[in-house]
Every structure is written in structure tokens, then in C-alpha cells.
């Protein structure tokens, strides 16, 4: 197989990514497939039978399930072998995350434990810390939690008030403060905690539950994820041995932000698994539910809902595995020494911070869309907790809030890319200038497309990249560094970039499949991409117009809007038919069809 070309973070927006450059689920190795089966087996045999008991916040049950997951190796995909883990590739982690997406509240326990609870130690712990904690965490003997948020430090995470002061004998840091909304707090044995040394230097610590002065507050009453534990964690003169300080004094932000990148991608993978659960649940119900003497799955509007759920999930799935492949490719370029260094690994992952934010936003919103339609298809039953749709709906909502709200992540997508552009790491500005130049002479009427499958969609995605570059360029020119204060503009640029990455991920995966298996075998995938691009292109055009209308006025506005019109030119296709094709396939298979 030809090597995949490695792109820089955010470079997809300016570069031509080929279908040979992306990893897709069709590229799974035999091991990836087996890991997926094991993880799914674990959910169907261990989680599903006890899901009601799990919802009652059953302490023993949760820890027992965590132990079982640990024994199977499901908790250790990211933990190196020498510390009791498996040290597998990121695709394997994505595979496990996807399966966990249907595990209800256990997915929350799993996500916090393996992600933000364990990874800071994997990437930023020293040798002794790794040896001491990782085998317990990877094996599921201990549950882990992560304490970043405080009442006054949510999105503004560095505004923490928790303080650490070195004890007079130099052996301990004495922590004082209170963390909020801590997942797994009720049953965690270890906490990664951020505190300011001497009230100034933001620093990470590993704190054990049994250290003197550590306690937890009352359980929060939450909308969903009832089976997970969420409490404040309180430090009152808590004695933390100096050897439990992580990385370096004053470098806590480095740990926190790197871990969030990884957490965002893992969250994306889990939400995508949840979406698949919605599709399968909804279609099974729709086939069995008879109204007017026919199954409701035969009605066009129900078909459209089922197709929309699966099509968006296809984009999400294509995106999550594409990103996992990008991590693996990038990590593969590290030399042996760098591979051993967690900080180097985290740095390689940080390269794709924009894509991590994109995955988080797209994945969580795709899941909210799917759970909403899942409830709707079930009608009154969807509103009753007798069916899982109601729980899915409530459980999904948190994903747009944690790991950085979707608003913060929307700010980060263009924010990080512009920052890198200013540092000369990403050639956004020349690309935007090139588009402005091209626009003078470009005529959409002269475009001749080859007679190959998805040629139109490929062209449209290329044009939408130019459109995003043009809009970002115009906005950056007008506002300069003040652009970040124009949050609505940033948000709309982010929306364009997010949808471009989604469309392109689905497109490239499908082109790769066509090359491998032929057009006939890919016909439902092709229909999905056609329908999705058809839905999305008008939205992208609309965001572009809104930004331009805010930024420009008078003659310039008219000129720029004419530019938008040229780039966004697109003749709609019969997307209703494409969706019917996809829906009929889902109904035939009674499951997610891709």
C-alpha cells in the first residue's frame, strides 16, 4: 500500500488531500476488527444486561465492570506495554471508543478514566509515577478522575483558585481549594489535579483519594448519565507528596491543553458509536411499528430521518478514523527516543488541535441530531423511559458542553489556524490571497467536470475550501487581531471549516472504497456523499454571505458577494432520491449500513 502523505494540522483547508492519504474503516486490519468485536461483545454481554442497575449509580457494579474491561485490555490501548497497557495505535483506541459509545453511563466512566484520568500520567508522568499508577489504571484496579474545573474556572480553566504550597519540611505540597463537576469523583482512587503553586504557577499533581485532606462533596443531580458519578472534590490542607507533582512547576497548562486535544478526539469517537446505536434502534422500531396498516419505515419522512441520521454518522465515522490515521501517521515519524517520550507524543497530537476541535463539535452535534430523531421516530414511546431513546437523548446533551464547550471549540478552530498562519506554520494567508486573485478571472460556467463518480462533489468541496479561505481572508483583513473578538464571525468560519472537513472525510473515504471495490459496492456510500453535499453547500454559502455582509459594505460588499456567488455555484441534485436509496438499504439491513 502506498504511504499516506502527512499533512500539517489544518492543512486540509489549503491542500489537495487525495483519497490515498486518508485512513478509513475499510482499511481496518484483522486486529482492529477483532478488537471491535471484543469491545462490542463486552457491551452486549456485560453492560446491556445491567444497564438499568447501572443507571442507579451502582458503585460496586461500576468498579466491577471497570475491572472486567481492564482484564480484557480495553482500558490500556493508550498505555505503553511496560506499564501494563497495550500500547496500541490510535485507530485501536478509536475502535474501542466507538464501541463504548453505546455503553450508556459506563461510557462516561470509561471516557474519563482512560482519557483525562489516565493520559496525563501516560504523557507527562515521570518514570516512577508511570510505574506506580499506570498498571493499576490500565488494569481497572483503580478508577481515575480529572480535576480541572472550578466554580469560577470553567471555560476559563487557568483561572483556578486551588492553591499548592510547599510544606516547611519540603516533603509535601499542601493543597487547598475545591474542584467542580468531577466525573468519577465518587469512586475514583486517583485524581489528576491542577493547582497554582504559591497561588501563581499552574501545575499538575497526582492526588490519591486516601491522602489526608481529600474529600468529595454531594452528587450532582444531572439531566443524564445518571449512572456516572459527578461531585465536587475538596482539598483542605491536603498533603500531596512532592514526588506526585507532574511534569514541571508552572507547566500545568501544557498538560491540561494537550490532554483536552486527545479528549476531544476520543469524545468524537464515542459520540460516533452512539450515533450508530441510534440508527439501529430507530430502524428496528420503525420496521416494527405499524400505523395505517403499514410499518412506519415505509413513510417518506421517516425514511428521510433514518437516512439523515446514517448519512451524518457516515461523515462522523469517516472523520474520526481519518483523524486517528493522521495521529498514527504522525506518531510513526517520531524516532525511537521521541516515541518513548510522552511529551513528544502529546506534541505530535497537538499538531492536529484544529481537527480535534472539529471532531468534538461535529461528533457531539451529530449525536444530538441522531438522538433527537431517534426520539421523534419512536413518537410517544420515545418520550418514555421504557425505551432507550429517552436515555440516549438525555445522555447525549453533555457532549456539547464538556471537553471545552462547542462555542470554545468553534473559537479554537479558526483561532488556532490563524495563529499558526501568523507564525508562518500554515500558509493560510497566501492561499487566501491566491483565491482573491483567482476570483478576478474565475468563471464557474467554464468548469468541465470529468465523468467519474462524485466528480461534482469533489469540485464543490474544493470550491467551498476556497470560499472559506476567501471569507476568512476578508474578515482577517478587516479586523486584524481584533477578529477573535468578533465571535459570531469566528463561529461561522468555524462552521464552514467543520463542514468542509466532514464532507471531505466522507468523500475521500468513498473514493477510496470505489477504487478498492468498484462503484457498485460503493453505491450507498456514493448516495450518502451526494445527499450530504447537497444539504451542506447552501449552508456554507449562507454562512459566507452572513460574514461578508457583516464585514463589508457598499461596492465592496457587492463585489465580495458576487465572489461568493461564483465560488458557491452549485446545481442541486435529487437528494430526496439519494436518501430514499440509503434509507431502503438501512431498512433492509436493520442497521447502520456503511
Amino acid at each position, binding site marked *: 500500500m502506498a504511504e499516506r502523505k502527512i499533512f500539517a494540522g489544518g492543512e486540509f483547508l489549503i491542500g489537495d488531500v487525495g483519497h490515498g492519504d486518508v485512513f478509513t474503516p475499510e482499511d481496518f486490519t*484483522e*486486529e482492529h*476488527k*477483532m*478488537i471491535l*468485536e*471484543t469491545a462490542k*461483545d*463486552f457491551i452486549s454481554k456485560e453492560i446491556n444486561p445491567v444497564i438499568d442497575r447501572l443507571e442507579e449509580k451502582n458503585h460496586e457494579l461500576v468498579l466491577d465492570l471497570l475491572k472486567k474491561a481492564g*482484564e*480484557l*485490555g*480495553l482500558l*490500556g*490501548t493508550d498505555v505503553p506495554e511496560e506499564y501494563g497497557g*497495550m500500547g*496500541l495505535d490510535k485507530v*485501536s483506541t478509536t475502535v474501542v471508543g466507538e464501541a463504548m459509545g453505546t455503553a450508556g453511563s459506563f461510557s462516561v466512566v470509561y471516557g474519563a478514566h482512560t482519557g483525562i484520568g489516565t493520559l496525563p500520567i501516560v504523557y507527562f508522568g515521570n518514570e516512577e509515577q508511570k510505574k506506580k499508577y499506570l498498571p493499576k489504571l490500565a488494569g481497572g484496579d483503580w478508577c481515575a478522575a480529572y480535576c480541572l474545573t472550578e466554580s469560577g474556572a470553567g471555560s476559563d480553566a487557568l483561572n483556578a483558585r486551588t492553591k499548592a504550597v510547599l510544606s516547611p519540611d519540603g516533603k509535601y505540597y499542601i493543597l487547598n481549594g475545591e474542584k467542580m463537576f468531577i466525573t468519577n469523583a465518587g469512586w475514583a482512587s486517583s485524581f489528576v489535579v491542577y493547582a497554582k503553586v504559591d497561588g501563581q504557577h499552574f501545575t499538575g499533581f497526582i492526588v490519591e483519594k486516601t491522602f489526608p485532606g481529600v474529600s468529595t462533596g454531594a452528587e450532582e443531580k444531572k439531566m443524564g448519565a445518571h449512572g456516572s458519578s459527578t461531585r465536587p472534590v475538596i482539598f483542605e490542607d491536603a498533603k500531596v507528596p512532592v514526588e506526585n507533582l507532574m511534569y514541571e512547576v508552572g507547566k500545568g497548562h501544557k498538560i491540561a491543553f494537550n490532554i483536552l486535544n486527545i479528549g476531544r478526539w476520543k469524545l468524537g469517537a464515542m459520540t460516533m458509536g452512539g450515533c450508530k446505536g441510534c440508527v439501529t434502534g430507530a430502524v428496528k422500531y420503525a420496521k416494527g411499528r*405499524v400505523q395505517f396498516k403499514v410499518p412506519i419505515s415505509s413513510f417518506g419522512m421517516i425514511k428521510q430521518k433514518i437516512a439523515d441520521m446514517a448519512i451524518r454518522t457516515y461523515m462522523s465515522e469517516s472523520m474520526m478514523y481519518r483523524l486517528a490515521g493522521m495521529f498514527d501517521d504522525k506518531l510513526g515519524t517520531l524516532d525511537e527516543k521521541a516515541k518513548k517520550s510522552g511529551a513528544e507524543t502529546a506534541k505530535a497530537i497537538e499538531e492536529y488541535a484544529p481537527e480535534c476541535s472539529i471532531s468534538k463539535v461535529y461528533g457531539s452535534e451529530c449525536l444530538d441530531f441522531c438522538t433527537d430523531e431517534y426520539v421523534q421516530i419512536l413518537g410517544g414511546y420515545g418520550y418514555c423511559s421504557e425505551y432507550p431513546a429517552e436515555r440516549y437523548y438525555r445522555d447525549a446533551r453533555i457532549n456539547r458542553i464538556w471537553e471545552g464547550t462547542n462555542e470554545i471549540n468553534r473559537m479554537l478552530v479558526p483561532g488556532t489556524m490563524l495563529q499558526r498562519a501568523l507564525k508562518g506554520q500554515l500558509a493560510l494567508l497566501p492561499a487566501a490571497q491566491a483565491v482573491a486573485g483567482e476570483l478576478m478571472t474565475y468563471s464557474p460556467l467554464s468548469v468541465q467536470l470529468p465523468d467519474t463518480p462524485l466528480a461534482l462533489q469533489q469540485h464543490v468541496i474544493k470550491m467551498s475550501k476556497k470560499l472559506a479561505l476567501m471569507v476568512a481572508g476578508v474578515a482577517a483583513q478587516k479586523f486584524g487581531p481584533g477578529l477573535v473578538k468578533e465571535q459570531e464571525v469566528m463561529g461561522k468560519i468555524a462552521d464552514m471549516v467543520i463542514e468542509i472537513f466532514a464532507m471531505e472525510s466522507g468523500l475521500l473515504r468513498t473514493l477510496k472504497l470505489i477504487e478498492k471495490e468498484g462503484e457498485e459496492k460503493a453505491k450507498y456510500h456514493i448516495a450518502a456523499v451526494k445527499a450530504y453535499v447537497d444539504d451542506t453547500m447552501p449552508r456554507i454559502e449562507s454562512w459566507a454571505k452572513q460574514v461578508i455582509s457583516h464585514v463589508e459594505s457598499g461596492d465592496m460588499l457587492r463585489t465580495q458577494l458576487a465572489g461568493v456567488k461564483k465560488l458557491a455555484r452549485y446545481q442541486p441534485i435529487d437528494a430526496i432520491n439519494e436518501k430514499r436509496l440509503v434509507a431502503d438499504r438501512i431498512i*433492509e*439491513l*436493520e*442497521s447502520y449500513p456503511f
Partner: protein
Amino acid sequence: MKIIVCLKQVPDTETQIKIAPGGEKIVTDDIKWVMNPYDEFGVEEALRLKEKFGGDVTVIGMGPKRVTESIRTALAMGADKGILISDAALEGSDSLGTAKALAAVIKGLQFDIIFTGQRGIDEDQGLTGACIADLLGIPQVSLAVKLEVAADGKSVKVNRPVEGQTLVVEAQLPVLITTQKGLNEPRYASLPGIMKAKKKPLEEKALKDLGLDPAEVGLGGRKLKIIKITPPPARAEGKIVQGETPQDKATELARLLHEEAKLI
């Protein structure tokens, strides 16, 4: 102890089965293939015996290349080596043909116990195990739900259900045992197991390696011919019994059971 497990790859129970035009085959395009669940009990039991007595476990499967995936799963669960019998000339074999191919391979191996599932969940014939035992000239004990190998490793006591009772059968090794639900709870292929399985030996054999006459196996060698496959009849819609009072409803129900369903 040398243990052999024969496994078959079958459509996943969740698969929507479609009958191919002609009515003699099913459409295999969209099928997800898995290890026959009854064979999983055999793999698990073999691994437990190996843990107790030492020795090794060999799994043998027959069919196209994709059967490798099921063999790999058994290796990931803990089996030591795999053999895939794969040859276009073997395609379409009936239970006897399959047993001939499997027995031909087993003859070249050392064994104390052979496990097969009591039947494949695809064609539900339940013949292959008995045929193999016969071809090898060893005893067969079918439908095992409990199994105890004597401490000296020379004999085995097997429980099998018979009409609500339990029959306990004792046999000398070597023996072939067919496995039934209830025997054990098969383990998962753990992630460490999956990664180890990659390095375990998996040998492939073709018809020429078996010393069999091609006429005995494959489509041409079939003693049983499938004439027609039909789907089960669609379930009729349910009926809600109408009536003002419970007495009325009961009367109506009794009438329906008697006159329409003809059950009473």
C-alpha cells in the same frame, strides 16, 4: 493433552437472511460471518482442559479465506495453532464431505479429545461431529453440558440432557465430544490475546494435501441435495380481544382459541 477443535464459520445471528434466486442458496453478500456459537463452547472447554492438564489446542476450520478470521478469534481466545482447509473443490460439501476433509487433516495429528459444536446454526444438521468420529473410528459423545476428564487423563465423563433428565456417559480417550449451550461461558478474545494471535502459526491446506478423491467432496460428492430453501411464514398481526367485561373477553378468547386457532 492434545486437543483439537473443529470450527465452522456461520452467518451472525443478527444477519437478515435473504434467499438467492433459484431458492437453493442464501445471498452471502451482506453477511457478517462469525464463529458458530456452539463451536465457541468447544474452544472454551479445550482451553480449560489445557489450563488443567497442559498440552495444546489446535483449531481447524474449512471454507474460503474469510474463515481465517474465526480461526484467529480462537487463537486470540488462547488456542495455540490453526489450520485452514481451503480449496475451491471443497466448496458445497455436505456434512459428510466436510467430515472427510476434517478427518483427513486430523489423522495426521496427535489428539486426545476432539470438540465440535453439536450443530452449525446455519444448516442445523448436526452431522459433522458424528461423521468425523466414525471416520476416525473413535467414540462420540454428543450434546455435552458438563465434562470431567479423569485425573489420569485417560477417560472422560460427560453429562448430556435427555428429556429433562441427565445422562452421564463415560468414554475412553481419544474421543469426540459435541458441545451444547450450558457447557461453559466462552471467554472473550482479550486485546492482549488478539495481539498474540497475530504471531501464532496458521497453516493452510488444500485438497491435494488431504489425500482425498475430489469426487468424494464438494458439490459433486454431496449425498444430500438441497432442493429448496423457504423463509419461515411471516408472523400474522396480533389481535386484541374485545368485550365489555372480563367475562365477555374470556368467552370471546375461548371462542377464538377454539374456532380460529383450533387450539382447544
